[in-house]
């Protein structure tokens, strides 16, 4: 199934991805030209290949579909994604994977600021580096960064786990480095393997919550 967004716009594509007939389909999307809301709310197990750059909210709220973008992605990529796989062959703009609940998001390039903000269960693997305030208030899920992390990573993080191979410019409030146990090495290996990346899991450090801010305490007010 082919869609040419230059002539059709996004509505035909999105409606098709909501219909049962898209189950098992191979969908190719041409001329995305940075359009917003491409392949949003996909409901079925199908493969979607987007040939070019996409704008805001591509693959948002995805369920089951495997979506690949041969280009860069604008803000809010795969926001509130529930399941399936989204792969960006270029870079991703700010708030990729925001509030997402499940599935796997792979960024082959870099991800901008607030990557994985309010994460609720999605796994994100970034082959490059991530911008500032990434994993802000991340609740559950995992964020793997093969490059470096910018300032205030993991600020006010809850139970999400972050693995970083390179340098971390600074940690956000209540985010600390934690020991890498065997179970963490194992889960990281699996994530890297699923993303198709060949890095040694042992070269990563793990970060997570110090859990000092879980219940309001006036003595912690200066931390904010």
């Amino acid at each position: 199934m082919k869609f040419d967004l230059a002539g059709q716009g996004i509505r035909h594509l999105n409606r098709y991805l909501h219909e049962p007939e898209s189950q098992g389909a191979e969908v190719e999307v041409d001329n995305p030209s940075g359009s917003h809301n491409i392949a949003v709310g996909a409901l079925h197990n199908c493969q979607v290949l987007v040939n070019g750059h996409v704008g805001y909210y591509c693959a948002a709220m995805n369920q089951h579909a495997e979506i690949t973008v041969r280009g860069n992605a604008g803000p809010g990529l795969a926001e509130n994604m529930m399941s399936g796989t989204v792969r960006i062959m270029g870079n991703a703009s700010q708030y990729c994977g925001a509030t997402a609940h499940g599935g796997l998001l792979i960024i082959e390039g870099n991800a901008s600021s607030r990557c994985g903000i309010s994460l609720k269960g999605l796994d994100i693997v970034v082959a490059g580096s991530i911008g500032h305030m990434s994993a802000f208030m991340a609740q559950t899920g995992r964020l793997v960064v093969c490059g470096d992390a910018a300032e205030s990573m993991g600020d006010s993080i809850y139970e999400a786990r972050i693995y970083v191979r390179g340098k971390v410019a600074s940690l956000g409030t209540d985010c600390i480095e934690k020991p890498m146990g065997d179970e963490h090495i194992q889960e990281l290996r699996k994530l890297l393997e699923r993303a198709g990346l060949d890095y040694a899991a042992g070269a990563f450090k793990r970060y997570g919550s110090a859990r000092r801010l879980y219940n309001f305490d006036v003595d912690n007010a200066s931390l904010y």
Partner: protein
Amino acid sequence: MSNEVDQSWLLESATFSRPIIREIQRAAREGIYDIRGFGAKRKLPTFDDLLLLGASMSRYPLEGYREKCDTRVTLGTRFAENPLVIETPITIAGMSFGALSAQAKEGLARGATEVGTSTTTGDGGMTPEEREHSRLLVYQYLPSRYGMNPDDLRKADAIEIVVGQGAKPGGGGMLLGQKISDRVAEMRDLPKGIDQRSACRHPDWTGPDDLEIKVQELREITDWKVPVYIKVGATRTFFDVQLAVKAGADVVVVDGMQGGTAATQDVFIEHVGIPTLPAVRIAVDALKDLGMHRKVQLIVSGGIRSGADVAKALALGADAVSIGTAALIAMGDNSPEFEKRYNELGTSAGFYDDYQDGQDPTGISTQNPELGKRLDPDIAGRRVANYLRVMTLELQTLARAAGKTNVRNLEREDLIALTVESSAMARVPLAGTDWIPGFEHKL
């Protein structure tokens, strides 16, 4: 008695009154600001400061019980394939499962459905009970996105993007750990017993241009079937309403500072925002300025209590209103029936505002299963329905007296103001004059 003080000689400071002294000393003792529920308690200009002009010689009334006065309103006519048709212009505002018990949410749903109006989810997502008992359910899309999922989004009859609320415009929320039961924790993807912060702004857009794309995203995901509302707390209302229209809203919801909350800092509740009275007039002016009045529907909320409040809001140009606190009161909140239990909590019926601590003796603002059992959803629903019916009858009574066959035919010309302040805010003449302060107006 010799040591009895003659009270008539005591002069209390207006600046440092006894409640102020008590609060300063509480703050000094506890080292934390006061967090509470309910809404603003300070005296504010309200719809009570306006009066309706009944018909006489220059207008003639409709027969009070016999002639038809339509209350039906259609919401979301701008873009949605399936606008909402409500039988009374009074809807139930968004309140979360978490802040409220499942029984309370079900009671609100049952009451709204019985009279043909809509109810609204809240932070934390949609519960199956609420969906089952709501004929028309508006799904709130909030900054925290707790419990947010596309399956529930598609089950909704409308989507309300919450930018802010009247009790705390610019602020987020905090559901304290004592209200985080297993079920609430599971719905929100967080451990049990920890404070759950609801962010003050959305994680994936920052301004009105982004919001326009966000609205399109939600429409695409729901195939343009259901209306998209945008809710703002009343502050810079003229600009906010115009930006909401520009972003593509079908319906704009403006929540004045009397709007309630489950848990916010007292300083926020009492000192941020503008009252509902000026907010509704400003919102209508903003819509008219764009030529979008009645094309984009306006819902106002914040301290609505009676059919008179509804009639005045509609006369100022609103299409419908929402109630929150009043609906909780209808279910039994602050009822003298629970006076003894309120006393045990150090308060009294009529004053209870500690919705945040989960010990509500009425079973409304709690997650304690034993307390929750005190609220029968069937009875609660019946009370909400009765209350909505009374408000609707009051509204019709007033509209008929003004000669209107449809409640939305009430207009600003049907109002006069009792105070200089309300005249200036509502832009209706001060009673007995043709004067509107700050506005050139000729009768």
